[in-house]
């Protein structure tokens, strides 16, 4: 069954078509990766799918509901971890989870149970009473993922989940993402710059280029499509997304990403 289906999803900013006539579908239980250089439209796509940004035209069905006309129903059924830092540093890890549990109407005994479970699953039990601004980057990411999973959404969106993390923290985040899939059967949609991440984590990937899908398939299918032996996903990426200099990423965006990376690191 398709848990996500976009229909000619398009977003225009002024003269720039950030996402151009995107039609993809994702099956229940997949880990699906959106790959692309800066400015390819990955984050814009994710913002539309999480109802943060209305599409210029086209629509999408997420977890059975229309992102344009049934936005609140969609919001109840999705989890979302933005690219930037989204845990609140002025609260403890426990409080971050507590506040979101309340926002998602998780009440009574169940609330404490789920918070406890999440902390255990993400290995944050010891730090739960400390302020988040004392956490390491990997811990913050794991907390954010725990936060987004409290209401057990059938589908989880992760925007660049390991950006700015060191290799050790990165593989720990991957491990926890895999665990979510096996524990709860969660469908996971993630965007990434890292080919290694797509290769090891994603069942299927779509390479975006200038707002369109340049190629879609399993990592091995994409490698095979180049018709050569011993191809890496990097080469596949360069083939479909072009090896040209990166086009997107304004000064402000870069400074934000760097700042986030610094705080996470």
């Amino acid at each position: 069954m398709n848990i996500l289906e976009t229909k000619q999803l398009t977003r225009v900013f002024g003269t720039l078509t950030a996402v151009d006539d995107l039609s993809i579908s994702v099956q229940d239980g997949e880990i699906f990766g959106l790959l692309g250089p800066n400015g390819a439209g990955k984050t814009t796509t994710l913002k539309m799918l999480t109802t943060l940004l209305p599409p210029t035209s086209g629509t999408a069905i997420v977890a059975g509901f229309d992102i344009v006309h049934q936005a609140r129903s969609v919001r109840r059924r999705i989890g979302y971890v933005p690219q930037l830092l989204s845990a609140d540093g002025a609260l403890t890890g426990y409080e971050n989870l507590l506040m979101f549990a309340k926002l998602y109407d998780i009440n009574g005994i169940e609330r404490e149970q789920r918070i406890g479970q999440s902390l255990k699953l993400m290995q944050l039990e010891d730090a739960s009473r400390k302020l988040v601004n004392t956490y390491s980057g990997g811990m913050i990411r794991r907390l954010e993922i725990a936060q987004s999973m409290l209401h057990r959404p059938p589908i989880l969106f992760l925007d660049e989940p390991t950006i700015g993390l060191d290799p050790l923290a990165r593989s720990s985040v991957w491990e926890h993402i895999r665990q979510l899939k096996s524990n709860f059967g969660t469908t996971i949609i993630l965007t990434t710059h890292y080919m290694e991440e797509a290769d090891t984590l994603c069942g299927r990937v779509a390479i975006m280029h200038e707002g369109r899908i340049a190629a879609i398939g399993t990592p091995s299918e994409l490698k095979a499509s180049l018709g050569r032996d011993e191809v890496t996903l990097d080469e596949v990426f360069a083939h479909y997304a072009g090896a040209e200099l990166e086009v997107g990423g304004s000064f402000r965006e870069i400074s934000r990403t760097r700042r986030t990376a610094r705080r996470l690191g």
Partner: protein
Amino acid sequence: MKSQEQDAPRVAWVNPVNADHENIFVAISQFLNKTLVITELEIRKLRHEPTDLFTRAIQPVLWLLIFGQVLSRIRAIPTGNVSYLDFMSPGILAQSVLFISIFYGIAVIWERDLGIVHKFLASPTPRGALVLGKSISAGIRALSQAVIIYILALILGVKVDWNPLSLIGVLIAVMLGAALFSTFSLIIACIVKTRERFMGIGQVMTMPLFFASNAIYPIAIMPAWLQVISRINPLTYEVDALRALMLANGSSVYGVGLDFLVLILVTTALIYIASRAYPNLVV
């Protein structure tokens, strides 16, 4: 046939226990419940980092101690049956509420730069609850200023009205004023979106709001054009209510009822506008 197939998952996914079409009473209780969660969240943050409240109090303290003391000696400003220091105290309370609230938007821009706003907007929390929750927490923050001004007024010998009803009135006026200006600030934040531009606009707004009001002198002594501006400045109505409620011999020019009506109407309108503008932060 084809369209039926496409619609099929919709039906399968609708969970009757967790129906999405709720009636109006459920919706209202949900709204209030979520508003309180947002307020609780803000108050918890404040509890971890309360020093800000005291550093914010330095400015009003200086106004009262220096400006107030000096102008009291000059006796240049007609203040009726109350001393100038008494006249000025409610004005400085309103000012400190204004100053602590008008930069509230900076916190929201900070949350936007990080990605916290994105996460809240992708949750089913009503936008109005996000905004109202924040404005209530701004009101609670501002109460700290009232406590400090009252202590100072006591020390300086300002004739304060200690009637519990008057105190409750002051409390409400302070919270309303804070909600009003913090929501105004939030709207500006949603429009300008960056810290640099916000700081510029914040500085430019604060002084006219303060000086084009009855906070430190009566409107009657102003030139006509300034009187017009002062009459449409919501701060004037907050000061007017505070002057009647806080001082033992205080009196209101416009009537406390009208003052509260203006404050409530403007705050409600601003909260409505802010909840429409809030999603714009992440676009």
